[in-house]
């Protein structure tokens, strides 16, 4: 094949696009601007680590199932690790988003970073909710019977039935975690592509 033909191949074009936007030194940088040396930048990574813990402990819960996490000491322990990782996850995520809000981190063509963050936040709330109704105890029965009226009032109840344990469990352990992890990956890649937003005084003037 001649070289123009090779250049036209979709694999070649995709490779040029990816390496153009994301050369190795941007994927795994060795230095960051001086203003990144602040605790406020630690909370994105904290959120990511907490999310990893949530998923890891969720895998362990899935191996032995509800009977195990309700009745054994180790099961209770892993269940608690799962819950408390979620608490750390939301705690860190909210501080992360406050930080990004007050530095207006959507400046300089970074809107999509902010938006993927917002959607991840909403997805995480749905994931936490489906988790609460998937516990298979009195707490989950109480929450789902309370929530059904609210959700039915929106009309969503016709396809999203909070009293349907099978459906809620599958949203909780398949659909929503998948979406949250993919969105997080896109979010972090976008930060890598654009670089960390400069402080107001160093930023180039925005075009209106």
């Amino acid at each position, binding site marked *: 094949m001649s070289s123009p033909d090779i250049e036209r191949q979709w694999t070649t074009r995709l490779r040029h696009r990816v390496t153009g936007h994301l050369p190795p030194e941007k994927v795994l940088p060795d*230095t960051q*601007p*001086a203003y990144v*040396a*602040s*605790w*406020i930048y*630690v*909370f994105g990574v904290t959120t990511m680590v907490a999310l990893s813990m949530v998923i890891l402990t969720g895998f362990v819960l899935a191996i032995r199932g509800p009977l195990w996490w309700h009745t054994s000491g180790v099961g209770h322990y892993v269940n608690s690790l799962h819950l408390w990782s979620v608490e750390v996850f939301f*705690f860190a995520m*909210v*501080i992360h988003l*406050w*930080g990004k809000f007050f530095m207006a981190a959507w400046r300089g063509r970074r809107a999509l970073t902010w938006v993927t963050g917002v959607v991840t936040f909403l997805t995480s709330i749905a994931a936490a909710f489906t988790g609460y109704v998937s516990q298979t105890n009195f707490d989950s029965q109480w929450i789902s019977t309370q929530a059904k009226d609210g959700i039915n009032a929106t009309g969503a109840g016709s396809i999203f039935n909070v009293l349907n344990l099978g459906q809620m469990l599958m949203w909780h352990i398949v659909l929503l975690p998948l979406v949250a992890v993919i969105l997080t990956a896109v979010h972090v890649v976008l930060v890598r592509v654009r670089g960390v937003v400069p402080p107001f005084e160093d930023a180039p003037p925005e075009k209106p």
Partner: protein
Amino acid sequence: MAGLALLAALFPLDHLGGYIHWGWVDISYANAIVVALMVIVFVAALLAPFPGHGRRKESR
């Protein structure tokens, strides 16, 4: 066990938790405490010196 009993006395979980009523704001003590902790950690993250900062001359 004594430790557990002490914890149970400090944090009674077998009856309804208290709520703060402040105008149209209704919030449980548990949630209010978590929000307060987040604000404290947020302010601390802005003010606390970051270890190692200034040690290296950064070029950018």
